[in-house]
C-alpha cells in the first residue's frame, strides 16, 4: 500500500460546474418529530427486526440485526415509540420510524476516552463497537456495505471530504474542540483495529486544525470521485493482499469517537442542503432526520428529492428520512420538458462532460435536473465511460461481459474495483445503466459467494 499519494486525476475531467452549491453557513435545524432508520439503504444488508411497531426504544436500543451476522446490530437513532415500519417491494424494510419523546433517554455503555483506549485489544474493541450499534459506521470498501467484523482489513480509510455534489466540508462538522477530540479518538480506535489507517482529503480543503491536518496521508486532486476512499484505495494498493479494506466517512469517525468518549450512541449529523428554490446551507441535525424538515422548497412541486449526493444519492421525498450514511439533501427539477429541436440547440446552459455543447465555454455553474437527456440506445463503443472511469475499468466491455454471462471475465476486468461512482452512466450518450448493472452484479456475486 502506498502510504501517501499526490496523483489521481480524470481523463475526462468531469469538473462539473453544478449550480446550487450551499453557502458556507452552518445552522441548526429544528428538532424533528420523528427519526427513522433505513435498512434498505445499507448495501447487502438483510435485516431482521428486533422490535415491532408500538415498542418503546431508547437512543442506542438495538432495532434490527444483520441476518447473515447477528453480531451486527443497528441502534435506534431516537428515543420514543416505534410509530411505523414502512415496507418496500418484496417486503424489504424501508424505514423504521420512531416518534420522538420530549425527553431523550439513552442506553448507557462504558465510556472509553482516548487514554483508556490504549490497552484494548482489537477483538475487545470490535465487541464494544458491535454492542453499541456503531459498528455499521465502518464499511467495506468493495461492496460499500457494513464491514465484516470477522475479517482483518489491509487498511482502513477515512474520507475527510466527499465531493459528490454537495456534501458538508470538514470544517462544518469539525467546529468545536469537542468535535476535534471525538474525531481524533475515532482515528485512534480505528488504529487499534488496523495498523494502516489512512486519511484522505481533497486538495485545498481545510480541516481547520493543524493537528488534524497532520493526520492526512493522502491529498487528492481531480474533484469527484477522486477523493472517494475506494478510488484512493485503488490507486494506493500494490498487491492482491491489499484488496480487502474498510472505510468510514469523516463524520462517522467523529461519531465513533463520540461513542467511545461518552458511552452513548451518537446521533449528531451535519447535512448539506442544496438545490432549486431552497435555502442552500449546512445544517446540524440528527441521524435519520426527515428530509422535509431540512429542506423546504415552498410552492414548488415537481422537485426530485435526492438523499445523498447527486451521483451516489437515491430518490427520496419530504416524508422520508435520511439513511445512515447520507449527509446531504438535494432538490433538483424532476425532468426537463420536451424541448423543441432540443438536440440541435447550442446548449449554452447544458451541463456536460463532452465538448458538444457551447456550455464548454460557459464559466458559470449550470443547473442540473433529474432527466435522462436522451433515450436508451445500443452501445456504440464511443469510450466515454472508459475515459470517465476513475479506477481504469473499461465499462463498455465489462458491461458486455456481464450481459453475456461472462462473470469471470467481468471480474478480471476489475468489476470488484468498481466504486459505483456513477460517472460511466452519467457520460453514456446511449443512456445505458452501466453503474446500476455493475452494482447489481457485484452484489449478486457477493451473495453467491457466501
Amino acid at each position, binding site marked *: 500500500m502506498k502510504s501517501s499519494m499526490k496523483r489521481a486525476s480524470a481523463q475526462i475531467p468531469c469538473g462539473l460546474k453544478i449550480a446550487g452549491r450551499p453557502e458556507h453557513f452552518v445552522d441548526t435545524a429544528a428538532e424533528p418529530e420523528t427519526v427513522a432508520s433505513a435498512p434498505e439503504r445499507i448495501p447487502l444488508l438483510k435485516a431482521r427486526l428486533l422490535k415491532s411497531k408500538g415498542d418503546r426504544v431508547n437512543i442506542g436500543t438495538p432495532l434490527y440485526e444483520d441476518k447473515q451476522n447477528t453480531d451486527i446490530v443497528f441502534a435506534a437513532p431516537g428515543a420514543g415509540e416505534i410509530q411505523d415500519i414502512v415496507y418496500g417491494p418484496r417486503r424489504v424494510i424501508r424505514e423504521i420510524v420512531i416518534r420522538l419523546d420530549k425527553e431523550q433517554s439513552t442506553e448507557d455503555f462504558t465510556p472509553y476516552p482516548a487514554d483508556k483506549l490504549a490497552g484494548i485489544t482489537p477483538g475487545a474493541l470490535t465487541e464494544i463497537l458491535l454492542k453499541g450499534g456503531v459498528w455499521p459506521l465502518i464499511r467495506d470498501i468493495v461492496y460499500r456495505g457494513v464491514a465484516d467484523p470477522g475479517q482483518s482489513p489491509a487498511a482502513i480509510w477515512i474520507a475527510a471530504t466527499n465531493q459528490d455534489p454537495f456534501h458538508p466540508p470538514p470544517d462544518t462538522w469539525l467546529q468545536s474542540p469537542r468535535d476535534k477530540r471525538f474525531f481524533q479518538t475515532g482515528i485512534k480506535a480505528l488504529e487499534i483495529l488496523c495498523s494502516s489507517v489512512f486519511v484522505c482529503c481533497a486538495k485545498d480543503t481545510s480541516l481547520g486544525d493543524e493537528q488534524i491536518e497532520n493526520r492526512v496521508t493522502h491529498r487528492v486532486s481531480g474533484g469527484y470521485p477522486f477523493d472517494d476512499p475506494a478510488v484512493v484505495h485503488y490507486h494506493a494498493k500494490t498487491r492482491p493482499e491489499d484488496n480487502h479494506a474498510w472505510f468510514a466517512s469523516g463524520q462517522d469517525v467523529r461519531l465513533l469517537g463520540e461513542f467511545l468518549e461518552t458511552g452513548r450512541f451518537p446521533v449528531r449529523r451535519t447535512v448539506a442542503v442544496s438545490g432549486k428554490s431552497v435555502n442552500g446551507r449546512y445544517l446540524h441535525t440528527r441521524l435519520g432526520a426527515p428530509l422535509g424538515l431540512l429542506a423546504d422548497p415552498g410552492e414548488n412541486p415537481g422537485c426530485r428529492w435526492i438523499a445523498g449526493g447527486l451521483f451516489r444519492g437515491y430518490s427520496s421525498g419530504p416524508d422520508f428520512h435520511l439513511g445512515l450514511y447520507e449527509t446531504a439533501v438535494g432538490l433538483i427539477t424532476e425532468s426537463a420538458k420536451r424541448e423543441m429541436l432540443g438536440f440541435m440547440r447550442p446548449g449554452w446552459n447544458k451541463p456536460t462532460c*463532452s465538448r458538444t455543447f457551447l456550455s464548454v465555454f460557459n464559466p458559470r455553474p449550470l443547473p442540473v435536473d433529474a432527466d435522462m437527456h436522451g433515450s436508451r440506445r445500443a452501445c456504440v463503443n464511443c469510450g466515454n465511460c472508459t475515459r470517465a472511469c476513475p479506477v481504469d475499468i473499461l465499462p463498455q466491455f465489462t458491461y458486455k461481459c456481464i450481459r453475456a454471462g461472462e462473470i469471470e471475465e467481468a471480474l478480471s476486468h476489475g468489476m470488484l474495483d468498481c466504486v459505483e461512482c456513477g460517472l460511466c452512466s452519467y457520460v453514456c450518450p446511449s443512456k445505458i445503466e452501466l453503474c446500476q448493472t455493475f452494482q447489481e452484479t457485484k452484489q449478486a456475486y457477493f451473495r453467491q459467494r457466501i
Partner: protein
Amino acid sequence: MGWIEKNLRKIFDAPRKHFESGGRLEKLGPLFEAIEDVFFFPAEATKNRPLVRDSLDLKRFMSSVLVALIPPLLFGIYNTGYHSRLASEMATAFMPSFTTGLGIVLPIILVSYAVGLFWELLFAAIRKHPISEGFLVTGLLFPLTLPPTIPLWQVAAGITFGVVIGKEVFGGTGRNLFNPALTARAFVFFAYPAQMSGNAVWVAVKEKAAGAVDAVTGPTPLAVTELQAPFNNIQEMLTDQGYTFSTLFWGQYPGTIGGTSAFCSLLGAGLLILLGIASYRTILAAVAGLLATGFLLNLAASPDTLPWFSVSPFYHLVAGGFAFGAAYMATDPVTAPGTDRAKWIYGFLIGSLTVLIRVVNPAFPEGVMLAILFMNMFAPLLEYTEIRLRVKKRIPHV
C-alpha cells in the same frame, strides 16, 4: 417560436393514439417516435443512480458527424455541378454549378436515405427497438463516396446491402463488424464495376450545350499510372494531367461526390476532434501510417518497380478518398477498436494498407475503402489484445 411549438405539438398529439401499442399503425411506432423525437427532444425522468445524466445523447453525437459532413457535402455538390457544366461547355460560375450539382447529387442522397430508412424501420418494427440515429450518418456517408454518374437503382441496392448485410444481420447498430456505408460501397464497387470504376464515370453530364461531347473520360489521379508513367516521373505526369498537389488538396477535379477535397475532410476531421466525437488517435495514426509506408516504398523504388512506388507520400495524403476515409470512416466508433492504444495500431495499419493497395496492387487504384474494411475485421482482435494487456496490469481480486 411559441406559436410554432404549440402547433407542432398538436400535429404530433393528434395521431399519437394510432401509433401506440394496440393502435392501427402500431408497427410504425418506431417511425413516429423517431420523427417526434427529432422535433421534441424526449424528456424522461431518471430512475437509477446517478440521478443526473449528461446532456449528450446519441442524437447529438450522430448529428455532430452530420455537421462535420457539411463541408465535403457542399463542396461535392458544387464540384459535381462544376465538372458537369465544364463537360457540357456551359458557364461554370458558382451558383449555376451548385444548382446543377444539386440536381445530380440530391436524388442520390434522397434515394440512399429513403431506401435505408425503409430497412431500418423494418428491422426496428420487427425487433421492437427505436430507430438508431447512426443511420443518419450512414445514409449520407454512402452517397458521398459514389461517382456522380451512379444509377439510382444501384444506390438503392448498395444501401440495402450496407444496412441489411453490413449491419442488421449482425444484430443492428452497435454490433456490426463492418462500417455499413463502406460495406454498401464495397458491394456496389464489386457488383457493378462498370459504374464504379474506370475513366468514364466521374463526370455526370446532365444538360448538354450544343456540340458538347457525349461522355467525358479522364483518368482519376490514382488511375494515371495506367498511362505507363516512366520511373521517377509520376509527379510530372500527374501535373500534366492537371493533378497538381494543390488541385488534389482543394479537390476541384472529377471524382467521388464528397471524397475529392482533402481540405474539406480536414475541416470535418478538425471539427470532429474538437467536439471529441472522433478519435484524434485514429486519424493521426492513419496519416502517420500512410506517410511512413509511402516513404518506405520510395526507398524501394527502382525502374523495375511499379510507377507509384516513387510518388511522394504527401501525394498519397491528398489523392483519392484517403482524407475522407480517415476522417469519417475510420473513426466510426462502432467498427473501430474502443481502446486507445488499439486505435493507434488500427489507424496506422489503415494508412499503411491504403498505400500498399494503391501502389503494389494495380487492380485497385483506390485503397482506402478496402484498407478500412480490412482493419474493421481486425478491430476486435486489437481491442481484445489491449484488454488482455490491461487486465494483466490490474491487481486481481480473489
